[in-house]
């Protein structure tokens, strides 16, 4: 993730230690994938209590862009910054693959680099990526247009409504299970995810 922002796009980027709570110098925050504290409990359930996360919640409140990818998405739902939850994949196996993901709409900050309906080929790698929300919440996020990414064709993890990524009502917090940062470096053969970072970078630079 750092490689994409700093190495490929030249955006000044720093890593945040989990116990640091002063994030006031940051214009945008990305919570990358991984296994926070091992995720031996429920994914993201411990991380959500880390000092750094308290500041992330404040930053989100202030309207700063917050992107959570994979484990980052799980942490954002645990923290209540995004609705719903991510539960064990339907077949109970971890899945690492490249899958078609449809961009639902061209949303400010995130998906303006894509056309609505455009299908991207994005890597996924998760054991608990099955998006779930109760029917009322589902209806609400669908009606509000908060679903930005949806699996196209077969459903790799059993997500409700094939949901792959959602934003909050205000639109400044995005969580997604696919890994756009693994599809951003031309040297590795796939750049379908790059536009997301370019749009985000442009928005930050123009602030």
């Amino acid at each position, binding site marked *: 993730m*750092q*490689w*994409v922002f*700093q*190495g*490929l796009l*030249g955006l000044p*980027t720093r890593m945040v230690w989990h116990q640091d709570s002063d994030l006031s110098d940051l214009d945008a925050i990305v919570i990358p*994938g*991984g*296994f926070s*504290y*091992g*995720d*031996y409990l429920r994914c993201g359930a411990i991380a959500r209590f880390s000092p750094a996360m308290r500041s992330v919640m404040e930053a989100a409140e202030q309207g700063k862009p917050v992107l959570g990818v994979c484990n980052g998405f799980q942490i954002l739902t645990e923290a209540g910054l995004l609705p719903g939850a991510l539960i064990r994949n339907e*077949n109970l*196996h*971890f*899945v*690492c*693959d*490249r899958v078609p993901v449809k961009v639902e709409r061209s949303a400010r900050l995130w998906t303006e680099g894509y056309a609505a309906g455009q299908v991207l080929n994005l*890597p996924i*790698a998760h*054991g608990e990526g099955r998006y779930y929300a109760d029917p009322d919440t589902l209806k609400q996020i669908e009606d509000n247009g908060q679903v930005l990414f949806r699996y196209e064709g077969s459903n790799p993890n059993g997500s409700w409504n094939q949901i792959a990524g959602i934003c909050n009502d205000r639109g400044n917090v995005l969580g997604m299970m696919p*890994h756009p*940062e*693994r599809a951003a*470096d031309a*040297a*590795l*053969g796939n750049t379908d995810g790059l536009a997301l970072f370019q749009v985000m970078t442009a928005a930050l630079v123009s602030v």
Partner: protein
Amino acid sequence: MSTPETVLESAPFPIAEITAEGIKPDEYVDIVNRLGRHPNKAELGMFGVMWSEHCCYKNSRPLLSQFPTSGPRILVGPGENAGVVDLGDGLHLAFKIESHNHPSAVEPFQGAATGVGGILRDIFTMGARPIAILNALRFGSLDDARNRRLFEGVVAGISHYGNCVGVPTVGGEVYFDPAYSGNPLVNAMALGLMETPEIVKAGAYGIGNPVLYVGSTTGRDGMGGASFASAELTDESMDDRPAVQVGDPFLEKSLIEACLEAFKTGAVAAAQDMGAAGITCSTAEMAAKGGVGIDLDLDKIPVRESGMVPYEYLLSESQERMLFVAHKGREQELIDIFHRWGLQAVVAGEVIEESIVRIRFQGGIAAEIPATALADNTPIYRRELLAEAPAYAQQAWAWSPDSLPACSVTGLADRPWSEVLQSLLETPSIASKSWVYRQYDHQVQNNTVIVPGGADAAVVRLRPQLATDNGMPFTKGVAATVDCNARHVYLDPYQGALGVVAEAARNLSCVGAEPLAVTDNLNFGSPEKPVGYWQLANACQGLADACRELGTPVTGGNVSLYNETLDSEGKPQAIYPTPVVGMVGAIEDINQIVGQGFQGAGDAIYLLGAQAPVTLGASDYLAAIHNTIAGRPPVVEFDRERAVQAACRNGIRQGWIRSAHDCAEGGLAVTLAESCISGNLGATVTIDPGSDRWDAALFGEGGARIVVSVAGDRAAAFEAWLTEQLGSDWAKLGIVGGDRLVINAPDGATALDAVLANLSEGWSEAIARRMERLV
């Protein structure tokens, strides 16, 4: 002088207690002679683990000594935690393979998981950041529920540990054969990129330097695992489950970061991970390698349970622990780093002049042993090699293809060749392993250039993790593969082992990589049995000769013997001799590599090494279609091997070749089918069987053959170039395109005509179908 009998009679332990530690009566006498007294219980345990095959190679050392171990690119050869090769531009790669067979047999999930954890520690102990994992796995038939459980558990364990620790599992191989029923093989290989300016070594130095214990706490888990790993598995082995360790991949991730940070301070003099035999092995090896002693106080060791006795401390195989020797006065700096990462770090001892391992406990001395007696000057067994090949081999060699049913251009008796191909593709050993690698995160770290299933070898970009220098492209890469056709080795250990090395090199050449160096994992049965030793000795000779021929020195590895299961009647069942070769290769430019799938309709298909002899002996066709394990494996021809591989590599680098796939299990027809499936493109080819049977032409196996494809409009120029490279040792097979694989005879008759979608579906689903619908 006392006789062996009197020594044993005067021992403070009954014979049964001595042998329970894995020590033979003669070895006990040897111990007493070295100490000048009887050992106590803790010392007996220390000798038990240190003199196990797993730690001291007492059976295999004389055989391993024949391996070539040096070369222009080799920075560190055998003897350290891992080998290191020079990839140029200041990039140094550490790599090593290790087995976790026995633990995985009794507790597949944790056994496999901690196997991954152990091999990663070998890498970052050297100062290298782990960048890739591969595995070689063997299981019995998936028709047996017990084997399915082992398979599922092992894959889940590797997935659990590798994914969480954040190192991509980029490749590997999996075979299924009844020979491994109940004794699966789990070999894990790891690669790491050196991050510290100096390679961190294991030899302790600096009298008075503090010895630090870092990482996790010590408990009773994994007691005596090294001895356990060096004995046959029995029905009672299931009761040894406490001998299997439990892994914590997140703690290991923290340990990686903390160790690399610690090494960069320059405050660490030496480091050794605690793998097999835990504290015993790490203290003894660090002391012996440095020619010094270590004085260690067990009371300082952080524990996870109370009431442990020295024997338990010393033999515990609790995971994620390391031993450091620090430069005196700089220990607090290191301790602070580990504490920041939430890890244990204590000064537990110091380096002493006298070359002994002295263990203190509760104010007294719990053990005191010369370091070399434990780690260096250990027993060696030289065994008699059978004068002639054992009966099973001679009987197998008497087999001839004449015993097979007749076949023709149309098929085998009344079975069309398309049907035979379909069933070979659905054989679990040949079928797609996507069920396995979809469970492994193979892209984490963002450097995976070729994902599993895409090529004959994995390719990872070499990008130092801390480098964020915009505009500097990182174009170098490393290719890696693990290989072993164990049926070939079983049927002829020498030729089979030659073939293993040749195939590994060929797989690297198929992506365009220059083969550099080898790490080997010798998985064999008991060397105490004449047949077992015959297999081991001949296979080692084969590995040594082939590594010399191909210029790929061995930089280290692992030996796992006694891979036999005893059935309820006590009859030993040995596995196939399985010398797994892990090989790494250099890639100058990751933009100049190819995968195995055909790239475009109209591309021309060629066979490099077309004149190589093929045989049905030891083939997958013979095993899967005729249920026959017999014949002799193909003979390796090194001149052809070198020429064909060089042509393939050069052709890739010069941009001629758009896909390359090694002809291995299942022969030419399976290779073509796999290239079609991978590229989702059909092909029409012509094969001339010459004087061979049709089944030999389609499914016969032989070394030094690679199927490549080239853009159609460049075919003529390529052929001229190829003739310069290989003379006439190549053939044009046909053209890519369509939605079928069609194989014709030279006279135009159709030998095989199969719908690609059917081949693809059967091949893709074969393992998942067995795992998910049959269970």
